[in-house]
């Protein structure tokens, strides 16, 4: 077996992996190796040619290729190494096994590992849409890759299920390339993605958004010929008699993302049932101390800027661990209070000297709220928010020194 040794091994060369690798190298890790299954670094951002990235981190609006381009440039300059076209099959505490066509099965021994595999899209099978099984049903991201990297137009008359950001961005992209987007269908009674995408991707082109609707049938044998759309009731069940046929040759699905954690599960690393990603502490350290994780493999983010910030913590912590310099010790588990679906990181060390940012999502959209983080009755952080939305991640920053517990909650402002 081909053997490689390194200080920090990073699995995945997308925005999370790039930021983690750069931070690990800067922290002092000598050999940092990114293992990437694609032929190029950059991950999903290679196909995200639209603007909207970097507003928080670089204070300017970049496209996906420009955003990851900056990290690739920095990584090369400081000597981060990359093993491309290599699929990781399995990890141990300090070992990564991958396969590529040049070296065959390869073993990478590392002082610490960063999981940065991102997520993949939910498919038709995940949401079980009835109907025939013709060609022309794509996940929005697959269609985006085909169009933006491979020059393959996926269809001419399109219905999009799901109002997530990728779906709305593809609605605009397909329209610009000459396709007709018939409608965007959303099961929930609120938009899944960002408001600005609704304005600039749907409203600008007169594309109808149908909230509280779903697809109950797919028609066509060789190729999609149409989809049947129906209204749903309060329990998300289709309402009989509201069905209407939309003719189309293509159906795009933008129905959620699943953190890609097959190798994490196989390594018996503890997975959080809400995020479907590994549980991490404030160092982005998983239940296996030598394994760190960051980005969409931990929880699905809506801004890549957050992914980069979180990944820099993971990379720097992994480097410290590999050098035997990472602190930690006792940990408390963060409690999700009123209207909070999950908080990440899930654990925090009260010995930590640095402030810790906790990212969270709410369960339901609310207006006029107060966001609070507290240790028992002791309020550590509080602010008013005009509104909160499950589609938009919120953040609280807390000094964890000496705390006994931590609860994050969103309450209605009196």
């Amino acid at each position, binding site marked *: 077996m081909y053997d490689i040794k390194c200080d920090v091994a990073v699995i995945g060369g997308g925005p999370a992996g790039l930021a983690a690798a750069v931070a690990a190298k800067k922290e002092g890790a000598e050999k940092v190796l990114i293992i990437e299954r694609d032929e190029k670094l950059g991950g999903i951002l290679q196909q995200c*040619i639209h*603007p909207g990235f970097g507003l928080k981190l670089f204070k300017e609006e970049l496209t996906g*290729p420009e955003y990851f*381009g900056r990290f690739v440039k920095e990584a090369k300059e400081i000597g981060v190494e990359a093993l491309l076209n290599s699929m990781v099959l399995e990890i141990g505490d300090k070992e990564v096994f991958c396969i590529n066509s040049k070296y065959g099965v390869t073993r990478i021994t590392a002082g610490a590992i960063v999981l940065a595999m991102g997520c993949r899209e939910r498919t038709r099978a995940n949401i079980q849409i009835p109907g025939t099984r013709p060609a022309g049903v794509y996940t929005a991201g697959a269609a985006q890759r085909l169009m*933006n990297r491979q*020059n393959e137009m996926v269809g001419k008359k399109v219905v999009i299920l799901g109002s997530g950001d990728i779906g709305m961005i593809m609605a605009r992209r397909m329209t*610009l*390339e000459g396709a007709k987007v018939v409608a965007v269908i959303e099961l929930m009674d609120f938009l899944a993605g*960002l408001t600005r995408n609704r304005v600039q991707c749907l409203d600008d082109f007169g594309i109808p958004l149908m909230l509280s609707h779903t697809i109950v049938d797919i028609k066509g044998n060789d190729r999609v010929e149409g989809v049947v759309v129906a209204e749903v009731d309060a329990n998300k069940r289709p309402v009989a008699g509201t069905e209407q046929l939309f003719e189309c040759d293509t159906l795009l699905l933008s129905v959620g993302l699943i953190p890609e954690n097959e190798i994490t599960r196989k390594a018996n690393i503890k997975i959080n049932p809400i995020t479907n990603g590994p549980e991490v502490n404030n160092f982005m350290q998983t239940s296996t101390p030598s394994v760190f994780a960051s980005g969409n493999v931990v929880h699905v983010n809506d801004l890549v800027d957050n992914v980069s910030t979180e990944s820099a913590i993971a990379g720097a912590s992994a480097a410290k661990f590999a050098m035997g310099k990472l602190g930690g010790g006792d940990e408390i588990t963060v409690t999700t209070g009123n209207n909070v679906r999950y908080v990440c990181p899930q654990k925090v060390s009260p010995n930590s000297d640095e402030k810790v940012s906790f990212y969270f999502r709410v369960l339901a959209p609310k207006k006029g709220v107060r966001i609070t983080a507290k240790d028992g009755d002791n309020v550590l952080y509080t602010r008013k928010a005009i509104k909160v939305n499950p589609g938009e991640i919120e953040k609280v920053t807390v000094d964890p020194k000496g705390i006994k517990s931590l609860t994050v909650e969103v309450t209605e402002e009196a």
Partner: protein
Amino acid sequence: MEKDIICTVCPTGCTIHVVGDEKSITSIEGFTCPRGKAYGEAEFLAPVRTLTSTALVEGGDSVLVALRSAGPLPKGKIMDCMKEIHALRLTAPVSCGDVLIPNILGTGVDIVATGNVAKL
């Protein structure tokens, strides 16, 4: 003419109600910050958008290169700009920042590459 504009300056998404004609605004309300007011005015009088797309490249390690308008373009000219972009036939190498179409349709805005395509 009146219009309800959803503000995209920040995630709050205020609905700004604007009344006026093509040249001037007679009333604007619903914004909650100065940036929102400026956005509402611009969006009513002269809406602009950043355009991104791809162009064909020959002889490179990728068949497409990503591109963008270097600045915002008038919203009404977006589809005409796309026709110009579709007509592009580039030859590798292409580097991030290369001007692919200078001053597209006389708007004063360049179309520039946002990705890199190496020569094969």
